[in-house]
């Protein structure tokens, strides 16, 4: 199969969906002429014009609000926030409007809208451009939250997100845009809400998502060399979470490690660990191990790398778990 980069996979998804549905449009800072800060929408303005690739002023709150109003009235907006770090600027619209309007109006208002953004570390850009804020969204009922790790998932999940009649927060990873991977030529969607077994194994389950899938894979490789067989589960969708897949895996391995690039306290690692504990209590030989970013603002400089999970941490944890 052909290999394309994550950003190209995303671009294809947007292109295909825009082509087949006139109501799909993109709005965000620098998405048009500039082609996106991370070049995801590059060239699309030539195909679809400024009517459908709308360069927004630096007004995040109102841009998201615009998307909501457009969605209510029949369009299918893809709103881009350049960094997930800007989610807080639009947080009222994202947390108090987008996910609640349908419920508050007794199901009258439909919000078929995708909020595309990107997060994570990797550019040593400091605490205001390196965050992983998925938990804010997952904790907010009414939102779907998707975080793809591979180009194929990026494309297939984004297409599903655009077709969804519900608001989807779609969080890409800045360090993945250039990564290549096999992506089928033909149009294909990947359903929201389904995890992917990224690597099969029998001794320990590593549950993770987004870029940490790569770190987990690397750790699994290292563990294999030491005779430990790790299964890596890429959640892909965080809300809803595919606990069937996770549970089945832990039922088999009896040991679980959760890895997130987000801060540890009150973040995704807590939820995943709590659910595994609930679902696999009798299977577990030890408490689920949480490996997450340190609970400090993300530092610039080389400290950045020390703040997030490392391959070694995962390997050590797996060895300890399996060593008992």
């Amino acid at each position, binding site marked *: 199969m052909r290999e394309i980069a994550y950003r190209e996979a995303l671009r294809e998804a947007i292109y295909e969906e825009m082509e087949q549905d006139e109501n799909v*449009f993109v709005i965000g800072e620098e998405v048009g002429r500039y082609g996106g800060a991370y070049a995801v929408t590059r060239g699309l303005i030539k195909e679809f014009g400024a*009517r459908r690739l*709308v360069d*927004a*002023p630096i*007004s995040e*709150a*109102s*841009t*998201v*609000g*615009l*998307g*909501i*109003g*457009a*969605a*209510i*009235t*029949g*369009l299918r*907006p893809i709103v881009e926030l350049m960094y997930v770090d800007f989610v807080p600027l639009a947080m*009222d*619209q994202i947390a*108090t*409007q987008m996910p609640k*309007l*349908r*419920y*508050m*109006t*007794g*199901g*009258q*208002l*439909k919000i*078929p809208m995708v909020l595309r953004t990107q997060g994570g570390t990797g550019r040593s850009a400091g605490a205001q451009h390196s965050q992983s804020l998925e938990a804010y969204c997952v904790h907010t*009922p*009414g939102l*779907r939250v998707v975080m793809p790790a591979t180009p194929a998932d990026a494309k297939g999940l984004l297409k599903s997100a655009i077709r*969804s*009649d*519900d608001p989807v927060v779609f969080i890409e990873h800045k360090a993945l845009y250039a990564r290549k991977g096999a992506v089928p030529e033909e149009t294909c969607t990947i*359903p*929201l*809400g389904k995890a992917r077994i990224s690597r099969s194994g029998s001794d320990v389950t590593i549950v993770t998502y987004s870029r940490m899938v790569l770190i987990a894979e690397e750790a699994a490789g290292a563990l294999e060399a030491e005779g430990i067989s790790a299964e890596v589960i890429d959640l892909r*969708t965080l809300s*809803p979470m595919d606990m069937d897949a996770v549970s089945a895996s832990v039922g088999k391995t009896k040991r679980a490690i959760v890895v997130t690039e987000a801060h540890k306290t009150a973040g995704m690692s807590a939820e995943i660990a709590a659910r595994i504990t609930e679902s696999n209590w009798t299977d577990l030989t030890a408490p689920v191990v949480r490996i997450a970013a340190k609970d400090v603002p993300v530092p610039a400089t080389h400290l950045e790398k020390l703040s997030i999970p490392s391959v070694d941490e995962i390997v050590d944890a797996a060895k300890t778990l399996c060593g008992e």
Partner: protein
Amino acid sequence: MTQKDATQSAGLSEPERVELLRTMIRIREFEDMVGESYLRGHTAGSMLHLSVGEEAVAAGIVKAMAPEDVFTTHHRGHGVFLARGADPMRMFAEVFGKSVGYCKGKGGSMHIADIQLGHMGANAIVGANIPISLGGGFSLKYRDVPGVSVAFFGDGAINQGVLYESMNMAALWKLPVVFAVVNNQYGMGTRVDQASASLAFAERAETFGVKGAEVDGMDVEAVYGAADALLRYSREGNGPSLLVANAYRFYGHGRKDPSPYRTKEEEAKWKARDPIALFRDRLVTEGVITAERSERIGAEAVTEMEEAAAVAVTQADPAPEELYTDVFAEEL
């Protein structure tokens, strides 16, 4: 058309003027009735913001709207929605938290909506409806529908930054968005000049590329005239506009608020310009209606609202399962 029908004010025919009066009276009666129900403990929620005193703003602006137009309101939006044609029974039911309410009782007074009537929702977050209405305007233009999108909000929302972001975007893309400022002089206990250093809101709009106008919000025909001009302007592709309508809320912030922060003199001054009395007197003076007919309209409205409330109050509460529905359009 008789000679008399052709007599017009602000371009309105006599029947239209009478209907405008009726609309205002119906709003007043609804609000009084829902306020009483609230005091009697019939409402589900604890918050109730009445628009008594602001009827001319609601009736006048909505009169200038077309069926394809869309709108949002703030938390004090009953009047606008009634003017737009809401069913009072379903409004009462919503405020009472009943399953036949506009939102199945899940929203309450502050979240009433009816997408059929173009009502994209009342909103309990001050200012939050403004960018949503911006999106409505974006969508109308995108879909080439000749409508306008109206955002109703209070003088308090003037200080929420999203207003300026939204004005700029609407102007940048010449969207058919009308910003309707219901300036009732207070945001809770704060007088408008205690919250806003400058009251030059219409001029301010112009510096964003938004056509601005200000109007006496106690004069329904003045409101209609100003709104009609601005809506036309925006509908015809000239870009957004902003209307400041100066009115007064006759009740407190919530139904029970005794408004200790304002003087009795101030209240009396504004109440002397009660928009309903003003307009009724004008119509009577101009011979458009008789005092008797106006009283009949009042009595009809009272009956209508009493009956609607009486029906609503006996309706069923939402079933417990309703807790879980309407979160998503699709289950995954």
